[in-house]
C-alpha cells in the first residue's frame, strides 16, 4: 500500500515539477497539487481545502529573475499527504509545508548551481561544433532530468518522513503549536509585501491603499476589487493621456 502510494506521490511530484517544461502553466501551485494528493489518497475534498490553505501560505513564492522561492511543490505534497493520511489539523500542514519547502530549496539550489550550469556548459561544447542536435538533446535531458530527481526526493520524503515527522510532532508543547498558529495567520503578509515591493513606486502607493481600505472597511471581495481596479486603470490612463497630449502639443508648436 505504502509502495503504491509512494509511487503515485512521485508521479504527482513529477507532473507538478514538469510545469516549467510545458509552459509555466502554474499547475505546480499548492491549490492544484494538494487536491491531486487528496485524489490519490482518497480524500479529494480535504485536498481541495488544503490547497486553499497552502496557496495562501505560499502566496509570495514565485520565481522572479534570480530569486528562487522555497520548493512549495515538495512542501505541499508531503504536508498534504501527511495531514490527509493522519487526519491532523490543517495548521499542521502549514507547519510542515514551510520547513520542508525550505529544506528542498537547498536541493533545488544544488541542481541550479551545479547540475544545470554543467548542462549549459555541455551545450556550449556542442554549439562550438555547430551541432544543433547535441544542444537540443542537452536541453531535453537536463530539462526533464532535474524534474525526475526532484520527484524522487519528494517520494523519499513521503516514504521516510511522515512517520518520522509524526514522532517529532508528538513532543511539541502546546505553546509552540499555538505560536505557530498565530505565525501562520501572519505569514501571508510576507508574500503580499514581496509582491508589493515588486510593483510599488511613490505614484502607485494610493492604489495599494485603495484596495486595502475597500476590503477592510467595505468588505468587498477580491474579484470586486479587481473589477474596480479595471475601472481605476481606465480612468488613470484617460487622465494621463490627456495631460500628455497637451504637453506634446506644446513641444511641437
Amino acid at each position: 500500500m505504502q509502495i503504491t502510494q509512494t509511487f503515485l506521490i512521485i508521479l504527482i511530484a513529477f507532473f507538478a515539477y514538469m510545469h516549467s517544461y510545458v509552459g509555466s502553466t502554474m499547475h505546480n501551485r499548492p491549490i492544484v497539487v494538494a487536491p491531486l494528493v487528496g485524489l490519490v489518497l482518497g480524500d479529494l475534498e480535504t485536498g481541495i481545502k488544503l490547497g486553499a490553505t497552502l496557496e495562501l501560505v505560499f502566496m509570495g513564492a514565485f520565481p522572479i529573475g534570480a530569486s528562487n522561492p522555497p520548493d512549495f511543490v515538495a512542501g505541499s505534497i508531503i504536508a498534504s499527504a501527511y495531514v490527509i493520511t493522519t487526519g491532523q489539523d490543517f495548521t499542521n500542514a502549514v507547519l510542515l509545508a514551510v520547513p520542508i519547502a525550505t529544506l528542498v530549496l537547498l536541493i533545488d539550489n544544488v541542481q541550479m548551481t551545479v547540475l544545470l550550469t554543467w548542462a549549459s556548459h555541455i551545450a556550449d561544447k556542442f554549439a562550438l561544433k555547430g551541432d544543433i542536435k547535441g544542444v537540443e538533446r542537452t536541453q531535453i535531458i537536463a530539462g526533464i532530468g532535474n524534474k525526475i530527481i526532484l520527484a524522487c526526493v519528494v517520494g523519499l520524503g513521503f516514504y521516510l518522513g511522515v512517520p518520522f515527522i509524526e514522532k517529532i510532532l508528538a513532543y511539541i508543547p502546546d505553546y509552540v503549536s499555538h505560536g505557530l498558529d498565530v505565525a501562520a495567520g501572519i505569514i501571508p503578509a510576507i508574500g503580499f509585501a514581496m509582491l508589493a515591493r515588486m510593483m510599488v513606486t511613490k505614484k502607485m502607493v494610493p492604489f495599494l491603499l485603495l484596495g486595502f481600505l475597500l476590503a477592510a472597511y467595505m468588505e468587498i471581495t477580491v474579484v470586486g476589487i479587481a473589477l474596480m481596479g479595471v475601472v481605476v486603470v481606465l480612468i488613470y490612463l484617460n487622465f494621463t493621456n490627456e495631460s500628455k497630449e497637451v504637453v506634446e502639443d506644446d513641444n511641437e508648436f
Partner: protein
Amino acid sequence: MTTNSKKAITISPDSQITKKDFYSCFFRSLTLDSSWNYERMQNLAYAYMMAPIIRRLYTDEKDRAEALQRHLEFMSVTPHICTLLVGISGAMEEENARNDEFDAASINAVKSSLMGPMAGVGDSFFWGTLKVIAAGVAISLSNQGNIMGPIVFLLIINVPHFVLRYICLDKGFQLGAKFFNDLGNSGIISKITTAASILGLMVIGGMAASNIYFELPIQIGSGDFAEPLQGYIDQIMPAFFPAMFFLIMYWLLGKKVKTTTILIGLIAVCILLAAMGVV
C-alpha cells in the same frame, strides 16, 4: 511583401521560415524555465527554442555554431511572453542570413535590451496581477471544498497565457528588427506597466486586508465587565493588525532581509509570545 513565394507554408511571403518552424518554436518555448541555472539562467532552453530557425536559415556549420553560441548567452525573461523575443530574434537571424552587411551582434543587443522591460511587464502581469487574481478567486472556491477552485485557477491563468504566447510569437516575427523602435516611441511598455501595477496593487491591498489574520486576546476591564481590546481597535480601523504586519514585512524586505530569515524570525517571535501568554 509583393512577391509570391513558391511555397505557401512560410510565415510570410519573403521568409524562409516555415509554418512548421513557427509551431516548433511555439512548443519549444514552453520549456523556457525547465533548465534554469544560476549562471546564464534560461540560456539552454532559449537556444533549444531557436534551433529550428537556425537549422532552417544556416547550412554552413560555422554559421550554425555562431548562431547557437549567440543564443546560449544569458537570458532572463518571463516565460509566458518569451515568444516575443524568439520572434524578434528569429526575424533578425533571417535578416542576418540574407544580408552580409547585417551586424550579428545587434541580435543579442536587441535581446538584452528587451528582456529587462519585458520581464518587468511580464513578471508583474503573470506572477503579480494574474496569479493573484486567480488565487483569490480559486481560494474562495476551494475553501468550500469546491473542485472548481483549482480548475478556475488554471483557466484564469492559462487562457490569457496561451493566447498571449501565440500572439507574441506572431507579432515578434512580423515586427522583427524594427519592433524595438516602434515600441519605444509609442510608450506602450510604460502604459502596460502602469496598468498592470495599478490593478495588481489594488488586488494585493484587498487580499492583504482579508487574508492576514491576527487578533489580540487581551481583555480590558475585569470580571464581568471585561471586553476584548480587539473590539475597540476594530471600531477605529478594521484590519489594523494586517496593515501593521504588511508594513513591517514591507520595511524588512526593503532592508534586504531575506524572506527565510523573516519567516524563521516571525515563527520564533510568535512562539516566544505564545509561551509568555501574550498572543
